[in-house]
């Protein structure tokens, strides 16, 4: 596991965007897995800016959404798709057929899961997965207890995550379940970028980088991936690095 620590959230976001471009550049039609959330938001802004500035052709890029709340889809304010539409897909002008995203409103959520896995397979796998680190160590909606071999599935959401998730909504939302790519699905990605920012993540970051793989902390189950980099700002890293000050 490589760990990259940036001075500020802004510089971390710019670094992530640059690394992502470099990973995708050699690939003719890359598949990018994207997480929504406050942490990767800055990276998406930097990515959109970089793509426009360097006139990078993204017409052959494909996207898969990491997760979605059950009962919600892109038409719902606060849904994962809604945020990614605004932060990434619309600014880049990504066509709808280049995106596969869980429709949390679908009646048959298991069929949604199969669809998403099929799409990933048809594109030859995920090239880069951008993932945020949850307060309890979750990745996507893989909450503590999720097995390492899990595929896309309907998940029960941990209470911590339900509370934290309210910040994305203007009114109280029912966030007890979600659909998510599994840990096994994510482990098959060629590159994993795991992001965490802010001092509130410092404790969980410290646990993830020091704990042997365990389902109790889902992020530890991808920590041994061959090509994973953990991107932190200084605040998120404050408990994990030795201070240089006397």
């Amino acid at each position: 596991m490589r760990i990259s620590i940036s001075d500020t959230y802004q510089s971390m976001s710019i670094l992530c965007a640059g690394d992502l471009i470099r990973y995708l550049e050699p690939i003719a039609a890359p598949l990018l897995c994207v997480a929504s959330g406050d942490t990767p938001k800055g990276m998406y802004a930097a990515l959109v800016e970089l793509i426009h500035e360097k006139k990078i052709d993204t017409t052959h890029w494909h996207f898969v959404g990491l997760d979605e709340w059950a009962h919600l889809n892109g038409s719902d304010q606060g849904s994962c798709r809604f945020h990614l539409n605004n932060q990434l897909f619309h600014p880049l002008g990504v066509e709808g057929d280049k995106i596969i995203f869980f429709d949390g409103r679908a009646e048959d959520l298991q069929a949604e899961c199969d669809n998403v896995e099929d799409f990933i397979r048809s594109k030859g796998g995920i090239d880069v997965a951008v993932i945020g680190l949850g307060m309890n160590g979750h990745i996507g909606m893989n909450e503590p207890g999720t097995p390492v071999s899990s595929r896309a599935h309907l998940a029960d959401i941990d209470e911590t995550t339900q509370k934290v998730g309210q910040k994305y909504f203007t009114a109280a939302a029912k966030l007890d379940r979600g659909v998510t790519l599994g840990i096994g699905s994510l482990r098959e990605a060629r590159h994993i970028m795991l992001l965490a920012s802010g001092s509130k993540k410092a404790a969980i970051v410290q646990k993830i980088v020091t704990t042997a793989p365990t389902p109790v902390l889902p992020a530890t189950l991808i920590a041994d991936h061959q090509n994973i980099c953990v991107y932190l700002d200084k605040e998120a890293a404050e408990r994990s690095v030795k201070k240089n000050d006397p």
Partner: protein
Amino acid sequence: MTHKSIAGIDLGGTNVRGALVTGNTLGVIRTQRLNSRGSIDEVLADLFAFTDQLIDRSVASIGIGVPGLVNVREKIVQDVVHIPAWKQVPLQAQLEDRYGIPVRVNNDANCFALGEYYFGKGRGAGSLVGVTIGTGLGSGIIINHQLYDGSNGGAGEFGMMEYLDHTLEYYASGQFFQNIYQTDGSVVFNAAARGDAGALRKYDELGFHLGKAIKIILYSLDVDLIILGGSVRHAFPYFSKSMWHQIQNFGFQNAARSLRVEVSQLENAGILGAAALVYPVAS
């Protein structure tokens, strides 16, 4: 003098190969397995046993290539990939003591470049870089008809340069398939030969990274000729297009235009190049 032979020896990780080179003629290739897990002396004993069999009265000198760092000035093999015990081995002195004839030792990628320079696609060229693409990425540099191996024998180790999140050879050698796709290079090669689209895409990516590697070589040395060796060269038809696509946007257009990238046709460039180590011009 013209009837004298040179013993060319290519020490690999698992076996040692060699032949006598007489003028432009390569004799019968001999191969012997090597106990690469053995001690310094055990591996040396294997090498001596092999060399005893290989040489005869016609042999006037011995050249040997090893897969590792060789300090030619201090005549020390410092480190050998796949033979853990071999650190700081005075191989040249050991062989000279035993056989009483001059011995030259160098890195195997340097031998590959020399082999190509004297016997292969490099004949007639003044400068070239031989790039071996196998499980790693190594290179041998010939500038103005001279092998350049640096002050400590480490010149041309482009594969060790930092690149993306790892080193260049992580992406631009046979390791790529395992490192990025968790699959074996030979599996991808066979699939590409059947026209499998996924396999061909993987080679496109490898070609992208190799193109980057070649640009690094051009920025460093501005040579007109690069010769590709190593097992991955057989996949050249699959990665050449994307490799050239990368090279097209090289900063100095004259250098990109005059560049030739050739694929080695020599099956035994390493042995030939090891023998060529004793040629006056190379040493």
